[in-house]
């Protein structure tokens, strides 16, 4: 029996639910599932320009595991591009280090510290907020 998959720490989930190709004649419903940890790996390595060692420590996995997640992410994106498939983000084996909320009215993202009791949007005081960590 293989060892259990360790949960990968994701700082913040992606702000989108997916990507869709346009300008294609292909009417396909097929999609590729990009895991949150794969999105995070791409973000840390190619957007925040961290090296794999730093990034792996941040996500709480070994450097080798990080490299595998990153490779899998790149391959999925490449496959989606070449085969004109949609990309859908799914939870995967990750956990968030903080609960992020999204305001449905003004689209601000924010955290609610323990010391705060009311759950309203800090930008527009709207009560229409949703947690980004549950799907």
């Amino acid at each position: 029996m293989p060892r259990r998959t360790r949960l990968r720490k994701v700082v913040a989930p992606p702000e989108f639910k997916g990507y869709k190709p346009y300008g294609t004649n292909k009417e396909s419903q097929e999609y590729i599932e990009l895991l949150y940890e794969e999105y995070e790996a791409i973000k840390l390595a190619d957007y925040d320009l961290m090296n794999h060692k730093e990034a792996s420590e941040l996500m709480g996995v070994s450097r080798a595991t990080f490299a595998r997640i990153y490779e899998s992410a790149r391959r999925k994106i490449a496959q989606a591009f070449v085969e004109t498939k949609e990309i859908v983000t799914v939870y995967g084996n990750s956990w968030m280090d903080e609960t992020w909320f999204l305001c449905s009215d003004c689209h601000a993202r924010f955290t609610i510290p323990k010391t705060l009791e009311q759950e309203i949007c800090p930008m527009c005081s709207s009560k229409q907020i949703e947690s980004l960590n549950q799907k």
Partner: protein
Amino acid sequence: MSKTVITSLGNELTSQFDKRFGRAEWFCVFDSKTKETTFIKNEFVNSNHGAGTKVAELMFELKADKIISGDFGPKAKELLEELNIQMVIIQDSTSIQEIVKRIVV
């Protein structure tokens, strides 16, 4: 009652909102009690290492309750979370004035 810090590109109310946190040019501190704004220059903007952490510590010294910025680095996020400071992420390209107007309701 509460202090809000907004990351800013300049030191005036008409300045643009800065989407960086650790390497923001200026910080606008808005006091919701006195309705006053003060601007503080970010001394860590050109530091080679750990700007986010140092700025997060500065926020604690300023007794900020809420920070409005475009993104928070992983280390800053961790520290601010521990300090119970609320983080707010907005992606709008707007001025400090507009943001202040939005939070004063």
